[in-house]
């Protein structure tokens, strides 16, 4: 089979798209400061 035929199996689980650690925001805020308007922690890389 071709790679494209498997792509429905990628990023399929809902946990892909959400925090799986209850303190994720706290950890990321401590490391990178406040997130942007979309909730992305850019840090000094913005």
């Amino acid at each position, binding site marked *: 089979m071709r*790679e494209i035929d498997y*792509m429905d199996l990628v*990023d*399929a689980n809902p946990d892909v798209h959400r925090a*799986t650690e209850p*303190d994720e925001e706290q950890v*990321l805020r401590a490391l990178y400061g406040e997130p942007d308007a*979309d909730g992305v922690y850019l840090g000094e890389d913005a």
Partner: protein
Amino acid sequence: MGTAEGMLAQARKSLGISGRPNVITREYAAHHGSDFLKASWCDMSITYWARHSDNSKAVLPAGDRAYTVWHAEDFQKLKRWYSGTTANVNKAKPGDIVFFDWGSSNSVGAIDHVGIVEKVLGNGRVQTIEGNTSDSVRRRVRSSSVIAGYGRPAYSGSTPNWTETIVNKLPTLKRGATGEHVESLQGLLMARSHPEIKIDGSFGDSTEKAVRAVQRWGGLHDDGVVGPSTWPVLLRVHA
């Protein structure tokens, strides 16, 4: 050939990319067909960062990848795969490619997502950068409970850190060993709350018992042999 830091620098540049098609899916589609323009793009992100940091050979040993299972298998075939146990996750390094299975199976066939390790947090957790999480490139915190394993690219330009350099020079010690290295070991065991240890340079019952206890504390297999995995725990420089 590039470095882990170069790979991470590319990932950081992508933070905030969202929606599809985007620059990452467009590039993959340009090489592999337009069907990828709107396909799930976590592994396309890894491919993109590798291509743009001169890390294709290390990160994509069998070529570009969008399907996560094949990518994990590439690392397995090269013996550069580490299953997602808590002990292994604690030994991950920035730049490692981390694969997720969500069901605590550590099964490669169950993998459906991938990211790159940016920081090792300890206690079986890493901070990652992932593509196509909430349809964007974001930083995440993930634990061994959702990590199937990670691949360690053979980055070039990466030199052993001082810990690895020291540990590589230390001998493997086990019951029956004698000499000054055993004395050093016994001193470290005393410092690790084992006052019952006497510094006599002889690796006997009490030394072995204390080594096993320290190994259990460090999340290692308690075989009583002091080697490359146990020395960092004794020196307090493990992840």
